[in-house]
């Protein structure tokens, strides 16, 4: 026989219950708790329950939500991934307000909901003695219960006295609730069964996954989006008579910035002189162009040893050989325009000024890699 956890007295209406509370409270026979189908006004104050700390918790978490949202958005939009929108400064915060508001509400609401349920009321909990009582059917329907409950240790609780007190207070039915039997939770058998269950679940889901991948082909969703009225690479145009989708310029015209080079071999271009001055701005431009177009094959330092080239078996030129260092500026320019061996022409990708800027930058690389003693002074 387990100890008695509580003695429960049932009342027929809220008023009778409320009237019984002060007398029972004065007797100090144990913790007084009421169980009702709906909140009864004033009962919580009468029982001397402390004020709910929920509002404070919600306020703190709401503020935390606002700060989290603001901090995260600032970090993303101003630090980690600056994205200029509408010409605003990266740290302009006004546009972050809607998301701040939503996150504030999200944090605060879940604090209110789950904080109430879990932190304050300690639910879900299925082992409460009242749940096993005969009275619970009535409590969740239309009856009202007052319980005198044993304190934490259970010492000094006198069920008989509690019953007498409840009867005096007008309780219509009395029920003694045994303390819940505490069985060990994590037994060896439970752990073994859980592990076995997890293993079986993994196996079954793995087999289902394997089977479905084997049986079902990969279906491309929305593939008809790919059917578009356009000419794909290497596809003849049915619109133009010559079959080209991109038409050649009208005979005798030259596009801006695309004057014919005036030479047919890089050597022939050697006589050209670099028209750009060697200023930091030109160097920066050359560096940018070099790092965009040249670096994949020639390497950031111009050694011609990057992994991409190795993968394709090509041997891009090392720009630091004596031969290439001996080229006049114009010949490097000519190589960019016309290409050499496996290197294609970059005339379409680099404007005239860009090419000359690259030449300056290549010269700087060469000098840096082959520095003489006096360069350091």
């Amino acid at each position: 026989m387990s100890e008695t956890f509580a003695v429960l007295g049932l009342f027929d209406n809220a008023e009778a219950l409320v009237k019984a509370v002060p007398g029972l409270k004065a007797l100090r026979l144990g913790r007084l708790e009421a169980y009702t189908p709906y909140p009864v006004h004033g009962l919580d104050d009468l029982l001397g329950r402390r004020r709910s700390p929920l509002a404070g918790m919600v306020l703190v978490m709401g503020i935390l939500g606002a700060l989290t949202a603001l901090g995260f958005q600032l970090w993303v939009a101003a630090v980690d991934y600056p994205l200029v929108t509408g010409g605003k400064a990266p740290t302009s915060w006004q546009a972050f307000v809607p998301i701040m508001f939503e996150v504030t509400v999200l944090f605060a609401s879940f604090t209110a909901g789950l904080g109430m349920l879990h932190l304050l009321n300690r639910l879900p909990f299925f082992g409460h003695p009242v749940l096993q009582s005969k009275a619970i059917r009535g409590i969740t329907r239309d009856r009202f219960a007052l319980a005198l409950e044993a304190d934490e240790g259970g010492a000094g609780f006198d069920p008989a006295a509690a019953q007498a007190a409840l009867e005096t207070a007008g309780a219509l039915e009395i029920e003694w609730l045994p303390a819940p039997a505490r069985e060990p939770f994590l037994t060896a058998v439970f752990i073994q069964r859980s592990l076995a269950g997890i293993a079986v679940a993994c196996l079954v889901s793995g087999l289902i996954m394997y089977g479905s991948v084997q049986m079902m082909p990969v279906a491309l969703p929305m593939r008809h989006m790919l059917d578009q009225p356009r000419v794909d690479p290497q596809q003849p145009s049915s619109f133009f008579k010559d079959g080209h989708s991109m038409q050649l310029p009208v005979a005798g015209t030259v596009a801006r910035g695309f004057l014919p080079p005036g030479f047919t071999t890089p050597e022939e271009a050697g006589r050209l002189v670099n028209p750009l001055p060697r200023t930091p701005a030109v160097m920066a431009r050359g560096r940018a162009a070099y790092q965009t177009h040249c670096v994949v094959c020639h390497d950031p330092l111009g050694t011609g040893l990057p992994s991409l080239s190795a993968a394709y078996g090509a041997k891009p030129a090392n720009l630091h050989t004596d031969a290439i260092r001996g080229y006049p500026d114009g010949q490097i320019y000519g190589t960019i325009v016309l290409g050499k061996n496996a290197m294609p022409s970059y005339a379409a990708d680099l404007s005239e000024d860009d090419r000359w800027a690259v030449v300056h930058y290549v010269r700087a690389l060469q000098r840096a890699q082959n520095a003489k003693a006096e360069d350091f002074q």
Partner: protein
Amino acid sequence: MNPEGAPFPLDLPEVLRTRPLTVGEVTPGRLDDHILAFPARVPPRKWFIALACTASLMTLGLALVGYTFYMGIGVWGNNSPVFWAFGIINFVFWIGIGHAGTLISAILFLFRKRWRNAISRFAEAMTIFAVMVAGMFPLIHVGRPWLAYWLFPYPNQRGIWPNFRSPLLWDVFAVSTYFSVSLLFWYLGLLPDLASLRERTGRGVRKFAYTILSCGWTGATSHWRHYEKAYVLLAGLATGLVLSVHSVVSFDFASSIVPGWHMTIFPPYFVVGAIFAGFAIVLMSLIVARETMDLKHLITDFHLEVMNKVILGMSCLMGYAYVAEGFTAWYSMNPFIQHTFLQYVWGHYGWSGCLTITCNVLLPQLMWFRKCRRSYPWMFLVAIAVTVGMWMERFVIIVVSLHHDYLPSAWHNYRPTLVDLGILAGSFGIFFTLVLLFARLLPMIATSEMKADLPGAQPRHGAIHE
């Protein structure tokens, strides 16, 4: 307080006493036996017929969504310049439907409107279903739905983040917050009822489900104390949230420069419209529910009348918003905005604007008459008109504004395809299927809230001191 410490024994005259909101004698026990018995009963034949109809519509809609996934968005009518058509119209429409539920459950709770108790659960459920339906549309409309999770800011190997200054991203946050908070609010409201259901049910799967879902709720006063606090806090938070959600939806439009969209009236205008449309749908569903489920003594004529008054008030506000739009167009002295505004009621789509005004502003004026507020045919007429009108309003805002913007060479008319119309019908099918299932699986009326408000449920003032 009198010298004895008890309040004055105030005997209020009949008119000043708080009237009971139920008809006839309603006791907590009878309420339970009526409302909570529905989940245990086998539904009648007409329920199955209704479910068959809505489920067929739902199947049609989902099949067409599947067809869209297979073929691509090209099977919809959207094309330059009307890139946002049915996908966004339906999204805005359904999100709006949800707002009535939150208004009833949260805002009216804060205003201590006791009549909300009878209809709040039902309206909240409709909120959740409406937001679920609404959420479907942007997901399809993004074009590659299987990558829709890219909308969320999570660290990724692409090394990029979404743009937090974009209203479309605000939308993601607003709608997902709205859905999760509504669900939480609804679930917490259900908790005491689930406990009642748990105790009413014998053994079996349903007992197990109710036991788990009710979390071991006992109704202890120490629990009720936190519960009531949580409920009022959630109501306050949901009030701010519901006002923000449709405002954020309106930012999708108002923060662009499209003529007809770029207006400061948009956020309040959208919120009012949302509540307006939502009330109409809730009202229609309530009428059907109270007739078929014998709820006339709980959802009384008074409830319907109050709801009709809300509809009337919102209708007048909508009228004001339309006038304000016209004023903005005129006062802007911008010929494009003026042209767009005239297109609403004049040009190729003029019928849609005229229909909107008729349905949203003119017809609801019938509700000035008490007879119309209390008669089913008129109520139904107005509710259906409002539903149609509010859908057409979003059509006007989206399609008519987009089809003629600042670049006349890009002007082009829009036509929906059968797939568009089928998915629209399917969205109603999904919504009403969920509503029908809800009406039979969970308590449709918040019984614990009703019980607390029945006559004699609370101890009289000063009872303790007698």
